[in-house]
């Protein structure tokens, strides 16, 4: 479907027109490939740049609201210029480097940590044609990128040559490796259901069957969401930074703009994961026909921030797990649920395709069954895991009189 080039509901339209123009002008295919790629990259980088700055403001304002205070409101209207003031402050600061640090790796870590965060945006569809690289293994690509962050964080922690940083990076590695598994298995359910690994394909699936995948995969969404908090180092799983324990964990020795990069990448990562969730579970740019009125990419950004809000909410509300509890949560709670979910989806898809059933009949049934099972599984399994604490009384005993003998009064 190629609309008019001035149809900005899908920014792919003007680009397609540009490609046609270039082809007419006799530009070789290789150059067109490079030019369109650059255009997309510029677009994505612009979004990331703006988002990283705005997110600081959003995060601090929302957290402020959660914590019955106002958040930044002094610099500019509604404090909107606060991130810029922060950035200026960070740039002015001296970028200290400990003598004992491994200088090369120490400097490299905050730079390369940006790469996976940005690359993830390449495969995300912003509109029907608005996708930079429509990989047919998009989901796998994103999961792979998520794991590479581990290495950068370990680089930062290990190169700092600081005990807190070492503890932090140690925790990160243990945690991220554990949380890869439930995340992958949760997305396996989605992939099985949609029958494709391409993110555009998954959005197309939701478009074709006129329903978001959240209605069929609530359990997968929950597992992926909780797993993402670990990947993103946010509470309740921010043990890598753990302000109250190991102060800042892996980036304790970083100052100035190097610290700023870690701070920014955290926000970009949050946006990337929110975008993945929005694409896989909330239909991406597709919103029940609303994308014909409002541009799909604007709806997509709206969904990203809706998911991002949940992450901020988590951060403002929940205490932190201890590392062994976090591991136990991944291995004992999320992983079995993810496996059950994948099995369930496999059975459903098998029944659906093998007997060639009508999608209009089976999909509502699948939705209801999956929702009911998700509720039952979470409650039952949660009770099983959390039951250890139920037997403890939650109110102290109250004594009106005390029977402790008084010591002899000292002779006057």
């Amino acid at each position, binding site marked *: 479907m190629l609309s008019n080039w001035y149809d900005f509901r899908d920014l792919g339209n003007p680009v397609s027109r540009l490609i046609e123009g270039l082809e007419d002008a006799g530009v070789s295919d290789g150059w067109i490939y490079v030019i369109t790629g650059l255009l997309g990259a510029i677009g994505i980088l612009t979004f990331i740049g703006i988002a990283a700055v705005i997110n600081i403001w959003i995060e601090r304002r929302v*957290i402020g609201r*959660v*914590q*019955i*205070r106002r958040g930044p409101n002094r610099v500019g209207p509604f404090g909107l210029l606060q991130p810029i003031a922060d950035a200026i402050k960070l740039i002015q600061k001296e970028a200290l480097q400990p003598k004992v640090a491994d200088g090369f790796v120490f400097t490299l870590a905050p730079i390369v940590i940006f790469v996976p965060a940005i690359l993830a945006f390449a495969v995300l569809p912003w509109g029907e044609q608005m996708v930079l690289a429509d990989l047919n293994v998009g989901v796998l690509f994103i999961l792979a990128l998520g794991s590479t962050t581990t290495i950068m964080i370990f680089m930062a922690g290990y190169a700092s040559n600081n*005990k*807190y940083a*070492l*503890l932090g990076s*140690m*925790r990160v590695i243990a945690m991220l490796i554990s949380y890869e598994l439930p995340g992958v298995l949760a997305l396996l359910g989605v992939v099985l259901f949609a029958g494709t690994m391409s993110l555009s394909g998954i959005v197309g699936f939701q478009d074709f069957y006129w329903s978001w995948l959240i209605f069929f995969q609530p359990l997968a969404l929950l597992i992926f969401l909780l797993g993402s908090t670990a990947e993103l180092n946010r*509470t*309740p799983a*921010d*043990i890598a930074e*753990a*302000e*109250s*324990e*190991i*102060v800042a964990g892996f980036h304790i020795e970083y100052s100035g703009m190097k610290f700023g990069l870690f701070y920014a990448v955290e926000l970009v990562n949050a946006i990337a994961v929110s975008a993945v969730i929005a694409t896989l579970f909330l239909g991406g740019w597709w919103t029940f026909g609303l994308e014909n009125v409002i541009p799909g990419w604007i709806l997509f950004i709206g969904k990203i921030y809706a998911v991002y809000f949940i992450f901020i909410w988590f*951060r*403002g*509300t*929940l*205490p*932190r*797990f*201890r*590392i*062994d*509890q976090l591991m136990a949560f991944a291995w004992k709670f999320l992983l079995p649920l993810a496996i059950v979910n994948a099995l369930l989806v496999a059975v459903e898809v098998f029944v659906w395709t093998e007997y060639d059933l009508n999608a209009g009949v089976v999909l509502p049934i699948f939705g209801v069954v999956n929702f009911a099972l998700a509720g039952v599984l979470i409650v039952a399994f949660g009770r099983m895991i*959390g039951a250890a*604490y139920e037997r*403890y*009384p*939650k*109110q*102290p*005993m*109250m*004594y*009106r*009189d*005390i*029977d*402790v003998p*008084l010591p002899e009064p*000292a002779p006057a």
Partner: protein
Amino acid sequence: MAIKTEPIVVNIGPQHPSTHGVFRMRVTLDGETITDAEMVIGYLHRSMEKLAEERTWTQNIPFTDRMDYLAAMTGNMAYCIAVERLAGIEVPERAQYLRVIFAELQRIASHAMANGTFINDCGAWQTPLFYMFREREKILDLFEMTCGARLTLNYMRIGGVAFDIPDEFMPALQALVDELPDRIDEYDQLLLDNEILLMRSRDIGKISAEDAMNASLSGPMLRGSGVAWDVRKGDPYSIYDRFDFEIPVGHNGDCFDRFIVRMAEVRQSLSIIKQAMVDIPPGKHCAEVPLNFRPPEGEVYSRIESPKGELGYYLVSDGGPFPYRFHVRSPSLINLSALREMVIGQSVADAIVTLGSIDINVGEVDR
């Protein structure tokens, strides 16, 4: 292949967000498990006990503010009661009631702070702290209304209190007393069923009743371990024998027990305040005491139940204008002495939670 491992020594503090001031914990770690811990104190030592020997009895009251600066009222009260016992000064009825009201308000404020920072140490990124601050702020407003100060109050005097309460105090106190129970119920709902908080604080930092008594712990630390002891009941001072209140006692002696004991104590404090508000008589707010009075020769040890535990003052007078000896039995220091036994074998994260549950105030530890 055998991997060579060795324990690492990590300094937690003195500059650390969770050490509640400048307290340092030198821990030896095997992985994340603490195998040894050494408490280093003294970074906030201000030599108050010695300085007090160079100042008159009345001039020493501000020092008591600055020891436990989160509970200045009880600090004032402990010292003033000790001096009154030494000199045999009768305190007017109204002053006694005012002292009780303010001491209990201070207990609520201090416990709000303790519980807020405790959950903060569990990793809740400051949200509970801000909510507890909201309640504490109202109490500090009441203090400001009465004596003009919010933190280091210097409100009590030997023989009574410095000022009588203003007219608008009682309505504001009534509003607070009416509002707080609902708020506490809200926090109970939010916190007591929070699985993560339970996981982080249940069975963490346990100390048995026997160990707690042997370590001479007091306050919520002792009561959390299941010992029903409260100086207000066991050795009543001021007019505490006139009020009807209960002592909350924990079950296991873990961090969560200390947390719920503090929560329950806030409710009991409110009940005491309510009773005192009804009974408070009119009259003088301070006995006539000369500014540089000289108590007779002698010594006294007097203790009160401060929010953190048994706060005792040991005062010796040689009949002069200055104390001959001014010694403080500070609950923070003595409660802290049990920390080493509590944290060994735990992980770093638990050690921080345990430290938070003790509710130390380094100003009082080092003095």
